[in-house]
């Protein structure tokens, strides 16, 4: 009995979690100091930021309180695309130790950079996430997020390793091998997208592996929105405790915020990431408890400071302090976005990217529709393209060639495998002359 009490308190008392419990006044003071530093740094190093400050006649030293953050200009996703690849860097390349790439809103990707200090901060917030989920030294953690340009895999990996856990870096894909290793290695925790875990649950059942009988006890799921009903479903089928983790490459990657064991919202590691909620239409700040767009400012980022970055994620800051004792503010779980971004198998996809790919191949934009479905727990994306007189030929090989070129361009631009279906002209439903671009048949 002693040991179980000890075990849970040991997890929450990991030394890395100390800032989670900082007295509020001290936290605000630290935030202000860091905000002033990051604004000065961005103003000195980043031309775009300086010019926007100049337009407002605003100097860095005019930021005297945390409320003054509202005077600062926003940063939006297209800023990262417009300054591709290195335009927003505040550190010289020799100090940059890592680059990650995420999808942009059109063909061009966005690049994010990290100094050694940034990677250390990233690792520390991931340690705080995982420790908050009850993981510790001795856990065996399977990282089934993609490794590589995507921040998910490496971010979770560094955190789990620094926590002192044993890391199994399976990356994404190959469900049968994931399940075999989970079973053979006695994996106790898994990090992946919630839909991928649903897929693993289904596959395990087909393989006759009873997840409930494995040592697996924690799942840290992120990179896409998911619901409480999905959590109940997952927990019912696998006997794990499922945690929601939040992050985005533009800010740092996974580890911007995470649930604690109370599961009442996600704590934002606000000693590094300052959260605001604004009206998505007007940009006006909203009080705690009001739903709006999450805006984040990196307080300690060196290589690529982000000031008031518009995440497009709709949520609210939950009023009051969490029962867990952390002084960090919490956001509600994210259910929707203020733009048309789709999240498919954890990958961000914009309809505008699909248009860019179709235009590139066709020269003109045919009517198209994106149809999203979930098959065996995995998101599937089909792009239906109406065959126009310009595209049509009486030769089947030429039509197949067109199909393959469209497929290739979409795979290339989106970075995920999609299905392309050529459909008859005038068969995609149009409402008031405008086609509905996205049909989402996924239910969660």
């Amino acid at each position, binding site marked *: 009995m002693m040991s179980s009490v000890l075990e849970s308190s040991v997890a929450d008392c990991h030394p890395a979690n100390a800032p989670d419990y900082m007295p509020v006044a001290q936290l605000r003071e630290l935030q202000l100091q860091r905000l002033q530093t990051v604004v000065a740094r961005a103003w000195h190093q980043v031309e775009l930021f300086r010019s926007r400050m100049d337009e407002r006649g605003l100097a860095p030293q005019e930021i005297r309180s945390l409320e003054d953050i509202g005077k600062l200009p926003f940063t939006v996703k297209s800023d990262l695309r417009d300054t591709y690849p290195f335009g927003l860097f505040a550190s010289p390349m020799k100090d940059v130790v890592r680059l990650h790439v995420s999808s942009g809103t059109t063909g061009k990707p966005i690049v994010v950079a990290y100094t050694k200090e940034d990677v250390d901060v990233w690792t520390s917030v991931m340690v705080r996430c995982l420790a908050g989920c009850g993981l510790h030294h001795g856990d065996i953690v399977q990282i089934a997020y993609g490794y590589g340009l995507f921040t998910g895999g490496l971010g979770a990996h560094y955190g789990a390793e620094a926590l002192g856990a044993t890391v199994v870096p399976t990356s994404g894909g190959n469900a049968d091998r994931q399940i075999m290793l989970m079973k053979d290695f006695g994996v106790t925790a898994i990090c992946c997208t919630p839909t991928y875990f649903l897929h693993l649950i289904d596959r395990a059942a087909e393989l006759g592996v009873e997840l409930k009988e494995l040592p697996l006890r924690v799942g840290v799921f992120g990179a896409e929105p998911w619901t409480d009903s999905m959590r109940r479903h997952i927990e019912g089928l696998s006997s794990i405790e499922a945690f929601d983790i939040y992050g985005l490459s533009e800010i740092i990657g996974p580890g911007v915020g995470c649930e604690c064991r109370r599961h009442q919202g996600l704590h934002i590691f606000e000693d590094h990431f300052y959260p605001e909620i604004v009206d998505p239409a007007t940009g006006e700040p909203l009080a705690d408890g009001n739903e709006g767009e999450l805006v984040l400012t990196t307080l300690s980022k060196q290589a690529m400071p982000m000031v008031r970055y518009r995440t497009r994620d709709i949520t609210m800051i939950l009023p009051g302090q969490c029962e867990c004792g952390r002084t960090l503010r919490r956001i509600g779980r994210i259910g929707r976005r203020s733009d048309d971004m789709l999240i498919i198998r954890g990958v961000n996809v914009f309809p505008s990217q699909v248009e860019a790919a179709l235009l590139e191949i066709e020269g003109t934009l045919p009517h198209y529709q994106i149809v999203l479905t979930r098959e065996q727990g995995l998101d599937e994306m089909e792009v239906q393209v109406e*065959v*126009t*007189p310009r595209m*049509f*030929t*009486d*030769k*089947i090989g030429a*039509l*197949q060639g067109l*199909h393959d070129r469209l497929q290739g361009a979409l795979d290339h631009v989106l970075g995920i495998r999609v299905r392309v*279906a*050529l*459909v*008859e*002209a*005038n*068969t995609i439903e149009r409402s008031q002359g405008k086609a509905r671009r996205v049909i989402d048949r996924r239910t969660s």
Partner: protein
Amino acid sequence: MKIHQISLFVENKPGHIAAPARLLAKEGVDIRALYLADTQQYGILRMIVSDWEKAAQTLEAHGFVVKVTDVLAIFVTDRPGGLADVLEALDGTGINIEYMYAFSDVRGDEAILIFRFADPDAAIARLQAAGINLLPSEELLKK
């Protein structure tokens, strides 16, 4: 000597050939030859019809994507070697067959081969030089 063939894009789903067939029937257009080239997902319905202009107009008016291409019709006796003779005439000429299909009249001993050539004019010259019977459209469409 060229014959106008009309091609339609159709999805490979139940009922997708019935609609254009019904439209043509309503307009009194007779389908003389038909061939469906298909993949798992979609197909190309190629037809030689009694009135290609009316057929194309009707189908386009109903939202179909139609393509009109020139093909050649070759008349052969329905006997072993009929096709081989034609193909041999083209051997070594560099004349490229995009695709072909054939139909025979069950009542007689005649077969008609439909060829889509990359260069129909070159093909006409070569086939005529080899003494092969090209069927003009009036003949082909004659009942």
